[in-house]
């Protein structure tokens, strides 16, 4: 524990008022749940939920060479079409993952990167270091923005009442739209496997959006959601949690995200190391595991195949939509093939499980 006080989002009082049970999340005082993780999870799968994601970071990249810079610090081929975002990993020189982020093209010379809360300051320092040879300006705008995620099959109808233009957005699209006397960024993105939107606005604008959602959300089945359901939803959907499932010791290949690496696109930070490490081969890969019997796996549970330990789970939980325990872990090659029978050790007992490829359930997006 450090002694610095926990940071609070612009919604802190509103979250408490809505019944949020607050916890320390990477130095932020955030709600782990409101009514309950199961109810919130099910609301997002069946109707819609709203999450405060104001702790996440915003970095603007602008200038003549903004796109070239964005290509340089990301391993994916980054869209230069205004209104489009691209998910990618930000790599160190050795190919290790510094962060995963979506970078949106706002215009020919202007980009917005949405980065993880715990890594926002480190990302910005890294970008600054890399920017020396580029005609770009960087703006760490995280303190000037709050952000809400509205997720679930009913999210378009609800968000459409407040931002009619949002309905025209494709997946990973972004639009700058008027809201509460200023401009807000409306993105068709999310971390749940459901359709939905994320809206970044000023602190006051974010609070106004929360209140408008709460006022109009009833008929759409909107419920406030915390970090607990955010985690069960994203794990079922097969999304990485940076810091738990990926960090600077892992490459995108090991994190089972080889699809975000575009070696053919030309030079980018980490490219040489990735080529070298890929040729050498990997000893572990992030692999999904689903229990075949009752039990709730947790971070740190050992995974066995034929009595031999093949790795440990880095994220694991009870999956409400599957009514089963699921997890992901860096496992040895003999467990990579989907359907491999393994065992997960929980409270000293080995529980039957099998490996799973891709999302644990079919995503709606």
């Amino acid at each position, binding site marked *: 524990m450090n002694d610095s006080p926990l940071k609070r989002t612009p919604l802190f009082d509103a979250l408490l008022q809505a019944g949020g049970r607050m916890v320390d999340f990477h130095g932020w005082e955030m709600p*782990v*749940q409101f009514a*309950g*993780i*199961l109810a919130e999870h099910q609301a997002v799968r069946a109707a819609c939920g709203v999450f405060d994601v104001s702790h996440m970071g915003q970095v603007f990249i602008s200038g003549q060479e903004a796109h070239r810079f964005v290509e340089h610090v990301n391993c994916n081929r980054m869209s230069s079409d205004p209104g489009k975002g691209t998910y990618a990993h930000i790599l160190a020189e050795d190919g290790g993952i510094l962060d995963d982020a979506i970078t949106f093209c706002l215009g020919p010379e202007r980009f917005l990167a949405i980065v993880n809360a715990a890594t926002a300051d480190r990302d910005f320092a890294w970008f600054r270091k890399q920017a020396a040879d580029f005609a770009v300006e960087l703006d760490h705008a995280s303190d000037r923005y709050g952000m809400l995620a509205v997720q679930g099959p009913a999210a378009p109808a609800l968000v459409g009442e407040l931002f009619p233009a949002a309905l025209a957005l494709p997946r990973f699209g972004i639009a700058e739209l008027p809201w509460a006397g200023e401009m807000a960024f409306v993105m068709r993105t999310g971390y749940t496997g459901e359709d939905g939107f994320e809206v970044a606005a000023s602190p006051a604008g974010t609070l106004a959006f929360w209140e408008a959602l709460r006022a109009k959300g009833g008929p759409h089945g909107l419920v406030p959601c915390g970090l*607990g359901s955010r985690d*069960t939803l994203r794990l079922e959907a097969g999304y990485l949690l940076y810091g738990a499932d990926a960090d600077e010791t892992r490459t995108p290949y090991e994190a089972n995200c080889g699809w975000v690496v575009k070696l053919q696109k030309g030079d980018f930070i980490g490219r040489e190391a990735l080529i070298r490490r890929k040729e050498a081969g990997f000893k572990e890969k992030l692999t999904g595991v689903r229990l075949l019997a*009752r*039990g*709730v796996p*947790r971070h740190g549970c050992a995974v066995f195949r034929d009595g031999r330990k093949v790795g440990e789970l880095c994220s694991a*939980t*009870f999956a*409400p939509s599957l009514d089963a325990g699921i997890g992901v872990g860096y496992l040895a090659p003999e467990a990579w093939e989907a359907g491999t029978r393994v065992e997960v050790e929980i*409270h000293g007992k080995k529980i039957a499980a099998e490996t799973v490829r891709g999302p644990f359930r079919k995503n709606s997006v």
Partner: protein
Amino acid sequence: MYDEKNCRFAKSHEWAFAEGDVATVGISDYAQKEISDIVFVELPKAGAQVEQGKPCAVIESVKAAADFFAPVSGEVVAVNDAIVDNPALVNQSAHGEGWFFKIKMSKPAELEALMDFAAYQSTAAH
């Protein structure tokens, strides 16, 4: 029939209700609220010996695991399989259908070391 007002409580939030030398045990309503969304319960087997204050069952919510400490010592004579199949029963009815198991008490005097409802309420609130 028992309800929370005539149960005896351990500091660790289990309750016991004695009829003769058999005590029905479970977790308090306060505990089920704190643990929230219970998704898995592992109970001892009938015939197992349990000891007051020692862990003998596991309760898992979506977020965390919690131990169940035996409120009294003795032999497990019946277990509530319904909560294994449907753990949400513990949240819905901690003092009713959500009971855990029954213990044939080897030391009935241990009940005296447990709190009555009023005393438990005043500690659980802190």
